[in-house]
């Protein structure tokens, strides 16, 4: 078996070129690959197309979380493919929204279920699907319409990426992954939809067999690179999880 383990997040993202398309997992904080994003910021790749649920901000989100918004703030992102460009609450403003209003970044806004299904389609080799979501709205403009079982649908295409950055709870050296609770969100979908999938692992990278086969959430066939997140302060852990003393 080819070695998938990298000793640092910086090595794991070193070859990402300018102009790459990158999927970034996470919904709120759980599942967000904060260490890999930090490494990509240090690495300096720019003109990126980023596929992620949102580009920073969000209700009740902790200050200082390192998500796709941090890449946008540093002007590394040419285009976002996401489900939200602006918060519904005017009290929450983001660099992304300000830059988008000023025409400094492109955005493709996708309904969240369509967004997830397009990523799944990308990973599953499906050329697209018909969905009733968005019919009669701006989202449907210019898209193929079809009546199926008496209901109007629109055609949506797959999303694929050069790289996926994913955060998992536990892995084995073959790249089999487990997520804990709501860390899972986009991880299994994005891992399958990228040419190179890079995973930061929270608890351990164990020997094959350590994860029960029927407890594997993402099989290792989708995973190319694994990095164990170091202990703080070098590594970034979800919220204050580390300090809480749990493992």
């Amino acid at each position: 078996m080819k070695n998938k383990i990298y000793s640092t997040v910086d090595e794991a993202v070193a070859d990402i070129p300018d102009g790459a398309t990158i999927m970034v997992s996470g919904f709120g904080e759980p599942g967000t690959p904060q260490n890999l994003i930090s490494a990509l910021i240090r690495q300096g790749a720019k003109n990126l197309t980023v596929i992620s649920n949102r580009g920073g901000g969000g209700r009740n989100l902790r200050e200082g979380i390192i998500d796709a918004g941090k890449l946008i703030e540093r002007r590394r992102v040419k285009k976002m493919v996401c489900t939200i460009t602006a918060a519904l609450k005017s009290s929450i403003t983001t660099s992304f929204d300000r830059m988008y209003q000023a025409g400094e970044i492109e955005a493709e806004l996708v309904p969240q279920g369509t967004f997830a299904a397009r990523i799944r389609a990308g990973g599953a080799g499906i050329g697209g699907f018909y969905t009733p979501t968005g019919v009669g709205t701006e989202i449907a403009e210019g898209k193929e319409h079809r009546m199926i079982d008496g209901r109007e649908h629109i055609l949506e295409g797959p999303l694929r990426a050069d790289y996926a950055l994913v955060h998992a709870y536990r892995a084995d050296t073959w790249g089999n992954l487990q997520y804990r609770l709501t860390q899972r969100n986009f991880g299994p979908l994005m891992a399958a939809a990228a040419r190179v999938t890079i995973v930061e692992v929270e608890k351990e990278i164990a020997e094959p067999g350590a994860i029960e086969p029927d407890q594997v959430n993402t099989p290792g066939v989708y995973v190319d690179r694994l990095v164990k997140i170091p202990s703080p302060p070098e590594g970034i852990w979800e919220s204050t999880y580390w300090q809480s003393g749990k493992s």
Partner: protein
Amino acid sequence: MEFEDGWVVNLGAGMATMCANYDFKDQTIIFHSENGVLGYGPPAPKGKEDFHLTNASNTYTTLLPGAAIIDHDESFALIRGGHLDAVVMGAYEVAENGDLANWKITGRRGGGIGGAMDLAVGAQRVFIVMEHTTRDGQPRLRKRCLLPLTAAGAVDLVVTNLGVFDVTEAGFVLREMAPGYTPEEIQAVSEAKLRVPDDITEFQVVV
């Protein structure tokens, strides 16, 4: 409360989440969150948070016995596939034909679709909770939505601070009204025509 025993319900952010604080007594309601939770409970008490467990509003939540965790595609397959009995969401405007606008303000690029379009199209019943008028007194119950649509013909029921409105083939029916108001007063702050049945009642304020 409009929910029935055994329903799977999604509560949108903001006012709608207050429904979770209601005492459902012996009814079991399974609350769904877009980020892949079926069967969440009350917010986690301070100091007892599990940092791997949040809901779609990014608040630390808890799981009740019988809960399940699913990925994001399955979470929305469940919604789109008609397995959600009801969604409760906020809105900017609702029209008498059931059109819903809640993701974008006119004249501003982009907006916040999130899960709203899928939820409005996929849930068996779409309940809207909103203030009856905008901050500057404009009506939110419209003949036609002025703002960009989230979904066409999707809304079943609207609850405002002034009344409970069924959305029917014939438009809005004022089923219940807030204590101290008359149907005429509620009509005066609504653009759409309200139908008023003979058996209209006052609603119980639950906070």
